[in-house]
C-alpha cells in the first residue's frame, strides 16, 4: 500500500519536471559525486526519471525492509511470542515450519513486486510516462531478489539466535552496506574490486530498468538465498527453543 502510494506521488510530480527546461540546467550543474551516488542519470526522459528515483534506491529498499521485517519474524517471531510450543506440538517438523513460512515470504515479496510493477506500468501513461514492460519486469525481479536475499539473511539470524531484534538489525545493516558499496564503488577505487560482493550491485547495479534482465546475476543471488536457507534450517533444527 505504502509503496503504491509513493509511486503515485512520484509519477504525479513527473510532468512538472519534464516541462521545466531550467531543471535540466540545474541538473547539469550537479556535482559529479552526487550524480553517481544517487544514480541520477537522466531526469527528463521516462525511464531515466523512474530509474533515478524509484528503482535505483527507494523501491528496492522499501521492498527489502518490508521483507526483512517479515524474515526476522519467520523463525524468531513465534518463539518470541511463545506460540511456538503450541505450533510444534502438532505433527509438523521444525524444518517444515520454516520452509513453509519462507515460501510464503517469497510469494508475498514477489506479489508486492508485482503490485509495484502494475502500479507503475498502468499509471505511467496517465502521467505522460512510458516504461517498457520488459524493463519494468527486470527491475521488479531485481528488487525482489535483493529483498528476498536479505529477508532470508534475517531468517538465518533469527533461526540461529531466536532474537527478532538481532535478525532485523543485522539484515538491515547488511542491506544498507550492500547498497553503499555499490553506490560508492564509482567514487572509491578500493570498492571497485569488491563491488561484485554486493547483492545490491548484482541485482540492481546494471540498471535493469534500461538494460533488462540479467539471469546470471539473479542466479548468483539465488545461490546466496539457498545457502542462507540451508543454514537457517540446520541451526533452527538443532537448538533449544525458548519458552
Amino acid at each position, binding site marked *: 500500500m505504502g509503496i503504491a502510494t509513493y509511486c503515485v506521488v512520484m509519477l504525479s510530480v513527473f510532468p512538472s519536471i519534464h516541462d521545466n527546461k531550467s531543471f535540466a540546467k540545474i541538473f547539469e550543474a550537479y556535482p559529479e559525486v552526487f550524480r553517481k551516488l544517487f544514480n541520477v542519470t537522466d531526469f527528463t526522459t521516462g525511464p531515466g526519471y523512474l530509474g533515478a528515483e524509484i528503482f535505483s534506491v527507494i523501491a528496492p529498499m522499501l521492498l527489502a525492509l518490508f521483507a526483512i521485517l517479515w524474515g526476522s519474524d519467520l523463525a524468531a517471531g513465534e518463539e518470541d*511470542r*511463545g*506460540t*511456538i*510450543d*503450541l505450533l*510444534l*506440538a*502438532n*505433527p*509438523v*517438523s521444525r524444518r517444515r515450519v520454516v520452509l513453509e513460512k519462507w515460501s510464503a515470504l517469497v510469494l508475498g515479496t514477489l506479489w508486492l513486486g508485482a503490485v509495484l510493477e502494475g502500479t507503475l506500468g498502468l499509471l505511467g501513461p496517465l502521467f505522460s510516462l512510458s516504461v517498457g514492460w520488459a524493463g519494468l519486469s527486470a527491475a521488479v525481479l531485481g528488487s525482489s531478489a535483493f529483498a528476498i536475499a536479505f529477508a532470508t539473511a534475517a531468517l538465518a539470524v533469527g533461526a540461529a539466535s531466536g532474537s527478532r531484534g538481532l535478525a532485523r538489525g543485522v539484515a538491515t545493516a547488511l542491506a544498507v552496506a550492500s547498497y553503499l558499496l555499490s553506490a560508492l564503488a564509482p567514487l572509491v577505487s578500493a570498492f571497485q574490486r569488491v563491488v561484485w560482493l554486493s547483492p545490491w550491485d548484482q541485482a540492481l547495479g546494471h540498471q535493469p530498468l534500461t538494460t533488462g534482465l540479467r539471469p546470471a546475476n539473479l542466479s548468483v543471488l539465488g545461490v546466496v538465498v539457498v545457502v542462507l536457507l540451508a543454514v537457517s534450517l540446520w541451526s533452527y533444527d538443532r537448538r*533449544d*527453543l525458548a*519458552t
Partner: protein
Amino acid sequence: MRPSTLATRAEAPDPSRARRAGTDATRSEAPIALTGVTKVYRGGGGVRDLSLEVGWGEVFGFLGPNGAGKTTTIRMLLDLIRPQSGSVRLFGLDARTDAVAAHRRLGYLPGELALYERLSARETFAHFARLRGGPDEATVENWARELDLELDRPVRVLSRGNRQKVGLIGAMMNEPDLLVLDEPTVGLDPLVQRTVHRRLREAATAGRTVFLSSHVLSEVAEVADRVGLIRDGRLIAIERVSEIRARAVHAVEVRVGAGAGLAALEGLGGVTVRERIEDGLRLEVVGSLNPILAALAGLDVLDLSVHEPSLEEVFLSYYDGIAR
C-alpha cells in the same frame, strides 16, 4: 479441511475410536519412558538423572514446587528442548528423531500458554485441525459447549480462565493417546476444573494416558493414579495415590453418652489416644477408618468428627524423613 470420514466422529463412539486410541500393537510400548535424563541450564537449574515410565491408561501427576523442573521435563517430552544426556521416548519412538510421528499421537498444553492473539478460538482450532487432520467443527463445538467457551471472540479479549480453556480444548479435542498437560487447571473455576478432571478420567478409562503437572497434591490426587514428586531437578518419589491416602493420619474426635465402651477403641491397631476429654477421646488413626467405625457401632455416639490432614503434609513429611 473437513474430510467426510471424520465427520462421523462427533456422533458415533464407534470402531474408529478403538483405532484412534491405538491397537494392542501400537500400545506395546510405554507412552512415556525417560531414562537418566539430564538437562542443566547455565544458571544451574534443570533436571538431573531423571528416570520415569508412565503406562497406558494411567493418569500420572507430576508434582513439585516452583522451579523444580516440571516444565523443563515436559518441554523435553515435546522436543522443544533437548537433554544433555539420557533418552526420552514416547510410544517407543525417540522424542527427537521421531518427533512428528510421536506428536501425531499426543496433545500438549504448555505451562506458559501463549495463543495467537488475533485469532478467535474457532480459528485457532481450525489452524491446528488442518495440521493434525481433525477434528471436525462439530466436535470443537461440543467441547466449547462443555467447557463454556465462546468460540468467536478474538483470543486477545478472553479472560485468563477462558484462554486456558482454549489451550485445553486444543490439547484434548483429538482424543490423543497421550495428553501432556503443564498445570492444566490454572485459572479455571471449580466447575470447569471438575469437568476437565472428569474428561481426563474418561480418557484413562478408555486406555489413553495423561501426564499432568501441578503444585498441589490434593488437586492431583483427585484425578491421578500415581504421583511423582520432583524437587530441585530430582525425582524423589513415585507413589500410588491410594497408598498416600492409606498412610494419611486422621484426627478423630468422638463423644459418647456412656463412657464405658471407649476402652475398646484404645486397643485397636493404628489408633493412638492423643487426649482424653470429658465425655470422649481425641485419637489419631493411621490408615483405614473401618475398624474404629465398627467399634463405635455398639456405642451411644453423641458426636464424631474426622479431620483429614492435607495430603501434602502426609506426602512431604514422609519424604522429608526419607531424604534425610
